[in-house]
């Protein structure tokens, strides 16, 4: 209701504005280009703030009060035209495409450059091109768009984080890129509103990113928010709503198949007595529940964005309001995400030389979180026996209206432990009950923005001083109430006896905290062109960043009243299980930097950067790190010998070299520390006084082509990125106690790769279309490790020289033992049985032990690619994005526990093909309640997680020139429409090294409308 009201109000305001036009000289006309009428061209009366845009037929009407007015027609990628009116009332204009349209200005750090003179690997994603993708999180805007940038959703749950990797993984520690929003660095951008963003620039190589020195080794993403525009205020309303549904669910056994499988497992195991499953088959109280179907429902989402922009030549503004709401696909709506953003961007030219401005965003987000990965609800739904029903029978004496869910298998009120029947079915909790009782709300209030001032010195304003103060201030509040539910398993503390086993006793956990980062940077920038041939740009600056975070938390249990009115700490039990906590952390970074570039005759260009950073995370001796870079470019197409080649509009060679740093390690890691938390005194970490910056040296060679007047443009890059002195947390042998790993500069990782991208844009008559394709090939390799640590062992991975980071490591399955003779001839003294997994005996000693482990796969994709297509014809437009990764593996722990566990969990239908006597299967071992080899980390669980996905499709139709409205576009859009993959888990797109059952990405269909006036 509120939203509708808002739209009406805005429409009303718009009417007033249009209605109040003054009567004076009125000019009309049509703007067109070589291929026809041009909608959306900006028409402005020079020297005023009177302006308009052409409509869908290229028509415009403008009224001027000035004498001898001059009209200015401008459109991105076209040469701006100024036409004196001279008393004419009809002016038709033909705009010419700017052959220099490559020459957009690109932000490359603390200053900007013309695109044609760039010498580093920089990719720009204009959000205007991205306007037809519907994404809840702005990081997703880069998915499939830029060669060498891999974007992955950690889970499909509303509000869960997105992971970005630029040119692979360089370190064992933090691999996230640095985001810089309007000049303010940030480690997170989920709070931004898609519609507020003008462009995202990815600085991939060292030459481009070195100006960010110590924090840039994983690449930098510069984000520029939209500014105001000179001209009449325009409004943009965009609303969409849609539904999400889960896809690609695995097929689980039904009740009959499940009972047959358990019966077989019992017979296959070393158990005595009669088979209880045979007796139990066909029990009257059995259900046939498909837990996955019960768990998922349709999700809903809606998004409203209102933007107003405008301004005079002195003051320009943008104001926007965004509201996004997503209700996930798990039942009972306890998986939700809501975000409200408000933004003001203001730019004021106080004098001819002095400019001030601000970009400020307030946002509020709230996430209702359910367990979405790891020990997730999804995992419970995979494991729970299908013979159990979701709800108890109302006549069941253990039924209660407040907790109608089944919990322990066939629970009755009389005695639990004595009854073997109940132990026959695994006691994993009821996922539907867990979804129902889940109550974990995480709120973030955030202020993010900057104020800046810029003053131009010297006659031609060649020297500019800019000061920029940014603040990133957030408060968070997490509140989780864990209500007691489930059946009484006889356990519990004295006073809690008789309560259900889940969340016993009930409890409330609250945590509140603050985090602020202040960024203060000052730059002096000198730009001058001498003799029209020598372009010089020099910049020096300093930056200071300080971060402080603190939080307090508390919990209580045994709330006598559990309704929401009493979910506050005061109303919990006051005698025991009281908990409170508080802690803080801080760090600071202080830097100087400089940059110089020189371009001769627009043909030869060279840029050098230098940054010096001092970080509180290192000891005094190693506090400063120095990060230089140099790059050069040669625009061959401008040379005399290529001037006459018509079809070649651009050919440029680029090369760069530079050094970048990484300081993303825990605070105080260089110190040896003793902790005294909760009265326990113990060694916390053994320090490393020699700890210093991790640095990565990158070399990049690139070539840019432009053909047929830049209709077709291509880029290719080859890079070598060597990360040395990797900040490696080394787990010390436990003989010195259980201490946090020491951070050591140990090891070297290389990433080498090729990146290609291709753009083709063309129009024939009224049909316009564009293709953008990109592809990156990456090879990740560990070159060196610390002498004390020949390898780093993870749960299912090992990092070792000559292999990729975190490569999967374990036993290689080579088949299934078909009979005892096969075992006896292969192993000595083994208690393996026919039907067990046969592992490769690497050293041929007749024993399968730790020395038979080997590398099984890599979690880092070798190939990432994206393809986007768009076209429009008359009012219709269509766009789609296809995206995929290849050459990547994932450890499907869900499969291990679903199909190969020794407990009576449910299975997927794959298990129906399990080994069942000689010759029956050589891939799936026998089902059993004893280890059939599946408890070992082995290749059977390392699966190819390559995928190819239709990420986005959108079809729209625009109605032209409705009265008083510039245009109205209706669209329908769909995400994740189909996925091609061999991966048997729920979703191949996951960031966990070990997939335990992840909330899957959903397929969504959205309907929307966009009104501009």
């Amino acid at each position, binding site marked *: 209701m509120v939203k509708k009201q808002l739209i009406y109000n805005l429409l009303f305001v718009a009417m007033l504005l249009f209605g109040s036009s003054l009567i004076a000289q009125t000019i009309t006309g049509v703007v067109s280009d070589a291929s026809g009428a041009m909608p959306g061209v900006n028409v402005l009366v020079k020297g005023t703030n009177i302006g308009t845009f052409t409509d869908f037929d290229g028509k415009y009407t403008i009224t001027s009060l000035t004498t001898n007015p001059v009209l200015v027609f401008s459109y991105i990628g076209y040469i701006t035209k100024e036409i004196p009116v001279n008393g004419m009332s009809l002016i038709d204009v033909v705009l010419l495409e700017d052959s220099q349209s490559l020459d957009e200005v690109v932000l490359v750090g603390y200053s900007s450059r013309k695109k044609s003179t760039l010498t580093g690997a920089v990719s720009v994603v204009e959000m205007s091109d991205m306007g037809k993708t519907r994404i809840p999180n702005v990081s997703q805007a880069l998915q499939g768009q830029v060669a060498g940038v891999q974007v992955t959703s950690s889970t499909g749950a509303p509000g869960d984080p997105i992971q970005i990797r630029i040119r692979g993984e360089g370190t064992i520690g933090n691999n996230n890129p640095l985001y810089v929003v309007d000049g303010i660095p940030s480690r997170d951008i989920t709070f931004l509103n898609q519609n507020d963003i003008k462009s995202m620039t990815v600085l991939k190589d060292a030459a481009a990113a070195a100006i960010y020195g110590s924090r840039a080794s994983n690449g930098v993403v510069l984000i520029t928010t939209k500014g105001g525009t000179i001209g009449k205020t325009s409004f943009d309303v965009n609303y969409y709503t849609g539904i999400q549904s889960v896809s690609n669910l695995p097929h689980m056994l039904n009740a009959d198949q499940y009972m047959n499988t358990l019966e077989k497992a019992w017979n296959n195991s*070393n*158990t005595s007595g009669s088979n209880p499953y045979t007796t139990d088959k066909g029990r009257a109280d059995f259900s046939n529940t498909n837990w996955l179907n019960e768990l998922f429902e349709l999700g809903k989402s809606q998004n409203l964005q209102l933007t107003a922009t405008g301004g005079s030549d002195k003051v320009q503004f943008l104001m926007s309001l965004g509201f996004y709401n997503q209700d996930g696909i798990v039942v009972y709506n306890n998986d939700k995400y809501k975000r409200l953003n408000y933004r003001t961007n203001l730019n004021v030219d106080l004098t001819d030389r*002095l400019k001030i401005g601000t970009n400020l965003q307030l946002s509020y987000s709230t996430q209702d979180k359910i367990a979405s990965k790891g020990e997730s609800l999804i995992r419970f739904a995979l494991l729970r026996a299908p013979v159990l029903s979701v709800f108890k029978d109302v006549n069941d004496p253990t039924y209660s209206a407040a907790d109608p869910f089944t919990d322990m298998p066939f629970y009755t009120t009389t005695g639990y*432990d*004595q009854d073997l029947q109940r*132990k026959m079915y695994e006691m994993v909790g009821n996922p539907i009950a867990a979804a129902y009782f889940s109550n974990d709300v995480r709120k973030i209030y955030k202020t993010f923005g900057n104020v800046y001032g810029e*003053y131009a*010195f010297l006659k031609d304003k060649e020297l500019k*001083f800019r000061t920029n103060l940014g603040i990133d201030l957030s408060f968070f509040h997490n509140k989780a109430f864990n209500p007691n539910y489930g059946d009484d398993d*006889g*356990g*519990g*503390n*004295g006073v809690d006896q008789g309560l259900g086993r889940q969340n016993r006793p009930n409890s409330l956990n609250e945590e509140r905290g603050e985090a602020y980062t202040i960024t203060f940077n*000052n730059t002096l920038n000198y730009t001058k062109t001498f003799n029209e041939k020598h372009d010089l740009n020099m910049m020096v600056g*300093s930056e*200071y960043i300080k971060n402080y975070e603190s939080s307090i938390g508390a919990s209580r249990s045994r709330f006598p009243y559990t309704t929401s009115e009493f979910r506050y700490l005061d109303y919990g039990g006051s005698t025991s*299980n009281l908990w409170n906590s508080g*802690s*803080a952390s*801080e760090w*600071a970074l*202080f830097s100087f930097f400089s940059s110089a570039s020189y371009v001769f005759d627009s043909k030869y260009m060279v840029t050098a950067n230098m940054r010096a950073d001092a970080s*509180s995370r290192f000891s*005094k001796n190693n506090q400063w790190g120095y990060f230089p870079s140099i790059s050069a470019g040669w625009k061959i197409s401008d040379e005399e010998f290529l001037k006459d080649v018509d079809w070649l509009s651009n050919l440029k060679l680029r090369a760069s070299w530079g050094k970048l740093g990484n300081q993303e390690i825990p605070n*105080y890691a260089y*110190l*040896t520390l*003793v902790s*005294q938390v909760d009265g*326990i*005194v*113990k*060694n*916390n970490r*053994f320090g*490393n006084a020699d700890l210093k910056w991790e640095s990565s040296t990158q070399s990049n060679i690139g070539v840019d082509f432009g053909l047929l007047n830049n209709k077709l443009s291509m880029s290719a890059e080859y890079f070598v990125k060597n990360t040395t002195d990797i900040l490696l947390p080394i787990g*010390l*042998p*436990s*003989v*010195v*106690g*259980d201490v946090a790993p*020491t951070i050591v500069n140990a090891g070297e990782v290389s990433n080498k790769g090729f990146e290609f991208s291709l753009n083709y844009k063309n129009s024939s008559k009224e049909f316009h279309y564009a293709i953008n394709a990109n592809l990156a090939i990456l090879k990740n390799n560990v070159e060196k490790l610390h002498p*004390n*640590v020949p*390898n780093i062992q993870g*749960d299912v991975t090992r990092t070792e020289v000559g292999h990729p980071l975190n490569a999967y490591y374990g036993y290689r399955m080579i088949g299934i033992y078909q009979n005892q003779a096969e075992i006896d001839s292969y192993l000595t003294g083994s*208690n393996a049985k026919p039907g067990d997994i046969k592992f490769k005996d690497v050293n041929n000693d007749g024993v399968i032990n*730790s020395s038979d482990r080997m590398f099984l796969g890599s979690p880092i994709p070798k190939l990432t690619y994206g393809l986007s297509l768009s076209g429009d014809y008359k009012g219709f437009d269509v766009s789609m994005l296809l995206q995929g990764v290849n050459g990547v593996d994932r450890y499907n722990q869900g499969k291990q526990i679903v199909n190969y*566990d*020794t*407990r*009576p969990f449910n299975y997927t239908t794959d298990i129906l093909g399990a080994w069942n006597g000689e010759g029956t299967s050589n891939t799936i071992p026998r089902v*059993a*309640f*004893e*280890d059939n080899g599946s*408890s070992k980390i082995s290749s059977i669980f390392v699966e190819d997680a390559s995928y190819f996905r239709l990420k986005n499709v959108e079809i729209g139709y625009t109605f032209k020139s409705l009265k008083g409205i510039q245009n109205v576009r209706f669209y329908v859009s769909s995400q994740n429409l189909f996925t091609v993959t061999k991966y048997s888990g729920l979703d191949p797109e996951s960031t966990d090294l070990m997939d335990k059952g992840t909330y899957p990405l959903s397929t969504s269909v959205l309907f929307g409308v966009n009104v501009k006036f």
Partner: protein
Amino acid sequence: MKYIYKSIIIIFFFTAIASCTKELDNNPIGLLTANQVDSSPTITTLESSVSSAYLPLKSTLNGIIPGWQWGLGTVFRNDIVLQDIASNDMKKKWSADGDQVWMDQLGDFSFTSENAAFNGIWVYDYEGISRANLAISFLTNSEIVQKTGMDEARKNQLLGEAYFLRAYYYFDLTNNFGDVPLVLSSPATFQEAFALAVRVSADEIKAQVNSDLTAAKEILPNVKYSNPSEPWRVSKGTVIALQAKVALYSSDWTTVLSTISELDALGFYSLNTNYFDSFDANKEFTDNEVIFAYNHTTGNTPQNGNGLAAVAGWGFFKPTDDFISAFEPNDPRLLYTFDVPNDQASKILGSTIDYKGNDDSPGNKIYIRYADVLLWKAEALNETGDYSGAVTIINQIRSRARNTPTADGSISPVGILLDRASSTNPTEIKDWLMSERRVELGFESQRFNDLKRWGTAKSVLTSLGRDFQDKNYLFPIPQRDIDKSGGTITQNAGY
């Protein structure tokens, strides 16, 4: 006008530089540097450093390593798996299932070096040693002690406790693994941690255990409870008892006898009248028999309760048929050890009726009690030829058991647990002693060590159909630490 702008800019630049650089060297928040401990130690840090070193003895779930790390074997202290399950007195659950397969593998000797049980006990013991080392380093630094104002008596008491705890953990390690790395102080650098990751001979470890115990004995006060308000603390009697046990495990019979005489001379300990009083959560530190126990308490944050009660509630820790049949007819100790009809492992739970399933229950974990000491003495007497002395002690234990009221309140029939006849056959007496120890100390995590030191592990377990190999007299070193050390920690033979 221009000059104003220029000066503002210059001011901006310089204030930024001046105010910022000093922020780079702030002290860490919430963590103590070595400097802070040296320059301004507090009495709380010293006191807590010692009490913290006790914690790896507790049975609280996730009490030392958080986060339900079943795969690392660190959810609770694994003595019960390594001793009672390995000796086949105990099985994981009544009926076979696939839950926590690593426990089954201890029982049937199919384990590898990756089994969680080994990593678990290794991590617990070395964490205890690390904490004891830290406490010892504080308490032996006279400057630190002086600055805190702690008096000499309290310092000696605490230091004695720390020495004992270090000895206890090393004794446990060497019994399980043989040669193990010897760490006696916190490493100064992380490189030193790797240098320390080398196994030294079991003899060297035992020498260290003995020297720590000697040092502890010298400085602990000559009273039953070093501090009556904290009866759970290690006392002089505790130290002497462990000295006797160390001697016993080296078959140094004369030392066993002389040390136990020393303990008896203190006059602190005797058998309780009632067998179960040592375990009854309601009688903790009021009984006569318990010499060393970890004091579980309920309702604390962080938790300090007995979590094995919860694990028992999930159906774990059941007696094997062979163990049940080891009890003579109507031996009241059976029901106290495991009450089959009520499915209650009373000695573990600290109650014959309560606590099962309670993850925060009060029942203590008993490490040394006087009945155990008496049986060591009997064993030493038998080995040194005092046969009647040995039989007398065995009968003393049997008499107490016989006269203990049964767990279900019924009167024990006459004629149970008759006294052993006098004998001069050391083999016969040793057989009596071995069966007496099994039933008297059942489920107290003593059995597998006993089988190993008697050299009977192979015959006993083979007769139960278990695949016990000679290599199994030592457990494998946990693969995780071998991997972490980069191979400087070597594996025991045969694994």
